[in-house]
């Protein structure tokens, strides 16, 4: 919660929480893990930029970047990055039916349909990238 919103609760009683409260329950830990996927999203954006620079600098620079990608610790890091990105995608798509309420006439489109629509969009986006990069 934004701390500035608390200004008008001068006598709000709050029990003190330990800093690592989110280690106490699996659900709390999952929540923090979900929020921390944003770190991997930022890492991916920066790595994408580094790769774009290498592409712009020419085939030799891209080959050097690719050689770095093959180092064992780097491969391990990127497997973790990919798993975190997948966790972000799945949790994000599952939030969609709660955030988006679509009505057709007087009926609400069921959550399952909204969720399937989002999975369809994910599939289409992935297919588009694979097709554009001619893999």
């Amino acid at each position: 919660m934004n701390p500035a919103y608390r200004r008008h609760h001068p006598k709000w009683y709050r029990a003190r929480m330990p800093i690592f409260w989110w280690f106490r329950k699996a659900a709390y830990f999952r929540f923090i893990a979900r929020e921390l996927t944003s770190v991997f999203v930022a890492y991916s954006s920066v790595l994408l930029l580094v790769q774009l620079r290498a592409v712009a600098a020419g085939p030799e620079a891209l080959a050097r970047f690719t050689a770095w990608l093959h180092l064992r610790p780097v491969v391990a890091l990127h497997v973790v990055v990919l798993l975190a990105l997948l966790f972000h995608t799945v949790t994000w798509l599952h939030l969609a039916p709660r955030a988006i309420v679509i009505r057709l006439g007087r009926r609400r489109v069921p959550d399952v349909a909204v969720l399937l629509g989002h999975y369809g969009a994910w599939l289409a986006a992935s297919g588009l990238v694979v097709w554009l990069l001619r893999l």
Partner: protein
Amino acid sequence: MTGRRLREPGLWLLFSAGGTLAALFLPVLAAVLWVAPALGWLAAPAHDVLAAAARSVAGRLFLTGLIVLALFHWAHRFRYTLYDGLQLYHLNQLIAVLTYGVATVLSVAAGVVVWR
């Protein structure tokens, strides 16, 4: 308070737009650009294919949007994770300046790299 009321919805909008683009596009990009070639599952995309995609106008617009929005997604989410996870409420201003500041600087760098 007026400034905050104007700013907050915009920041939430950047957060959710960035979250959606990241959810749709980052896993496949990470898989085909970084993980699959390194594990030998797939040949790495050729240089001329990548260069053509990165130089086209549509490619440049897409990459700018993806990278900038994903960075602001991180800034917003990480800011609130620091508040809730580590209870750093007293550092509100400092954390906001640092997270959105880093996202802004990297966005400018992205603009330079993508549009040069």
